[in-house]
């Protein structure tokens, strides 16, 4: 694994070969009709693809009865969340937009400084609009289904606050550590806006909101635990190593649904008598964290192995204590390298939260199934529409994050041989 060593000498940007521009006819001959077999493939694939696109397009634009989504859009987003308290969700979104915007602005400022000092290649030209494409598509489709002026205005407000915070953060250029604190503080504050002062506890959360909360909460809580496990697995103390390996292999060897069953049916028995069983959402989150921590540990272990042994030896020669070597020398270098892996894990957690539907939580997938049983829509075969909508929501989110993670990977210079 390549580790980046910061030097003052500018890294020469790799030269890209000049782009070949061919006139359409030659392009087609080269890319579509090179040989007889190529022509055959092009025709077969072209017909099949055209048929599929036609069927899907016709279904989405003409045949599908989207009324079920239009009338249930709030249901799909928040499920049983009390409608009188919805302002809390919007408030939380505003807080999140502000803090995340500030964080993004800080990284942008850092990046600009690195480029100016010649420590990094100038970024490829990708406009902000193109990068945010999938997320924008998702939001506009949701708003289109909502058909509500209020929701549209509030969304625009969230966007404006986010962009404003981004600009502000870029000018402010905070220390990265402080920016991370701001983001974490924003997440905690947003949580407080929804729950505190007679708010709504997360037993009553649902829909897409619950999906996102479980994924974000899962990865944030699993991260420290996973780092500890990874350090334990790399420890020179055999007893610590054996226990950590056993934990990691146990949870990586069983399917998530078995761990969720454990959370749903078993946690209650593991508490001393007199202690109330935590709500199903809490138990599902505990299961997700226990499960994800094992995977995070393996990702972090990869990063730890990428830190050259000379770093540790140099630190030892300087007389640093083992704790300091770990926290000041090894982890900063290791964690930088595992960010793309962690994003990948977050994406799969985001998709895997759909499994909590099986133990009965009303997240996005479960709501999509339940609304087809409403009296107005019963037995009309609308499951295709609702599942298509749910997969669209999952798809745009996961696709967007995976594209951003690939960008990040290129930027950090990982995966290059």
């Amino acid at each position, binding site marked *: 694994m390549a580790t980046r060593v910061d030097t003052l000498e500018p890294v020469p940007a790799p030269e890209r070969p000049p782009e070949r521009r061919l006139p359409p006819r030659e392009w087609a001959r080269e890319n579509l009709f090179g040989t007889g077999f190529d022509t055959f493939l092009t025709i077969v694939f072209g017909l099949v693809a055209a048929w599929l696109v036609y069927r899907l397009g016709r279904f989405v634009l003409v045949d599908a009865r989207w009324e079920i989504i239009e009338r249930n859009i709030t249901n799909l987003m928040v499920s049983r969340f009390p409608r009188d308290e919805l302002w809390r969700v919007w408030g939380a979104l505003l807080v999140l937009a502000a803090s995340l915007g500030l964080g993004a602005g800080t990284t942008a400022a850092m990046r600009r400084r690195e480029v100016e000092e010649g420590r990094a290649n100038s970024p490829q030209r990708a406009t902000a609009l193109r990068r945010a494409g999938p997320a924008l598509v998702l939001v506009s489709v949701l708003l289109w289904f909502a058909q509500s002026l209020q929701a549209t205005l509030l969304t625009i407000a969230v966007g404006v606050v986010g962009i404003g915070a981004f600009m502000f953060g870029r000018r402010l250029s905070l220390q990265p550590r402080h920016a991370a604190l701001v983001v974490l503080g924003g997440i905690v504050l947003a949580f407080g806006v929804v729950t505190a002062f007679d708010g709504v506890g997360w037993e009553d959360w649902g829909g897409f909101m619950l999906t996102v909360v479980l994924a974000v909460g899962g990865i944030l809580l699993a991260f420290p635990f996973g780092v500890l496990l990874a350090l334990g697995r790399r420890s020179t103390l055999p007893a610590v190593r054996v226990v950590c390996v056993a934990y990691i292999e146990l949870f990586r060897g069983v399917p998530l649904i078995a761990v969720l069953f454990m959370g749903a049916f*078993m946690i209650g028995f593991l508490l001393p008598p007199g202690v109330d069983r935590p709500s199903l959402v809490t138990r599902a989150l505990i299961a997700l964290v226990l499960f994800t921590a094992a995977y995070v540990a393996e990702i972090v272990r990869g990063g730890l192995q990428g830190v050259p042994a000379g770093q540790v030896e140099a630190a030892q020669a300087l007389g640093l204590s083992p704790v300091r070597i770990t926290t000041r020398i090894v982890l900063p270098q290791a964690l930088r390298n595992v960010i793309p892996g962690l994003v990948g894990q977050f994406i799969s957690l985001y998709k895997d939260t759909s499994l909590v539907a099986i133990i009965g939580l009303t997240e996005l997938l479960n709501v999509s199934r339940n609304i087809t049983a409403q009296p107005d829509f019963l037995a009309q075969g609308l499951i295709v529409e609702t599942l298509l909508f749910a997969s669209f929501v999952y798809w745009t989110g996961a696709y967007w994050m995976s594209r951003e993670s690939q960008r990040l990977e290129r930027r950090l210079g990982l995966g290059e041989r």
Partner: protein
Amino acid sequence: MSTVATTTRRPPPWRNVRVLRWVFQAVFLFLVALLLLYLWETATDNLRRLGIRTDFRYLRQPAGFAIPSSDFRSSQSLFDAILVGIQNTAKVALLGIVLATILGVVVGVARLSTNWLVRRAAAAYVETFRNIPVLIIIIFCWLGVFLRLPPIRDATEVLDLVVVSNRGMVVPWFDKVGSGAVFGLVAVAGFVLAAAAWIWRSRRFDRTGQPHRRALWAGGILLAVLAVGFFATGRPWVLETPERGELSTAGGFRLSPEYAALLIGLTVYTASHIAEIVRGSILAVPRGQTEAANAVGLSGLVRLRYVVLPQAFRISIPPVANQYLNLVKNSSLGVAVSYYEVTKITQVSISQAAPAVQAILLLMGVYLVFSLSIAFVTNLFNRRLTLKGR
């Protein structure tokens, strides 16, 4: 010199690293043991207080539920039910692995095609299915496709061979009419002969360098022996095509909608991941290899078959094995479409008053055995194929 004296002096125990290591490990193990003991004690206490048994003898009780598409009766024990569940898991996982590998390799190679349309179609496939939860794909196949097919009365028949309806898909299958034992012996003999031919051709190739064509030889011998044996033993099996009745079908092999949905969902999803691995592995083969093959005048397919793919194959073993493991674990999603694999059976047995703690521990144990055995096999395989030395 005086340094000799300082190195032989022992540090006091509270600063001696060796002592500290022992102490730390002992304390750590003690705490872990304490935690486990505490969990165990509370669990058994709680169970006893609620009058739930704390041993595994509940497995001998009658199951109390039947399993669709199997001979399992509700009077049989829970233990038998779990065995049937393990069989069903294996049934969907093995076929899924085979299909996902084929589809994944095809799509992965197609992603690197020189044909723009093929390349783009493969990319669209991968990006679509990689980013949707596998559970949604499975449920979509089940509720959105198979259960919405016409009832048997109006079932579609493909070439009079396959009957497709909302009760599943019925395909032609072999029906046993005569004694299979003799034919089994013939088949074993055929395999032995084929293996012998393979070895003979390989050795001859090593000695003389003439083309071995061992796959052709071995396959031909096997087919010939099987064909001769099949007719000589009086055709012990006949291929039976399904007959469509008013309310049911007779003959053939029925794939239930649940099985088909789970199988297709797992295949499609895993194939999209395998395709990415295949593509990455092909790209990871150093470009000099392709160029060298070009320089010695190998054509496209030959280059792929003898230079690129063997090296890509070696790179791709660990990640593909990981995908196989994921597929086995994801087969637990049968629980969402009521396919009675081991997870569904555990869920049903818990809802029928089997003790939850033991049932879930047993379930985890079953999957651990699955995972560890797959990991073991791939490690063996990997060790044989990794380059030695260098």
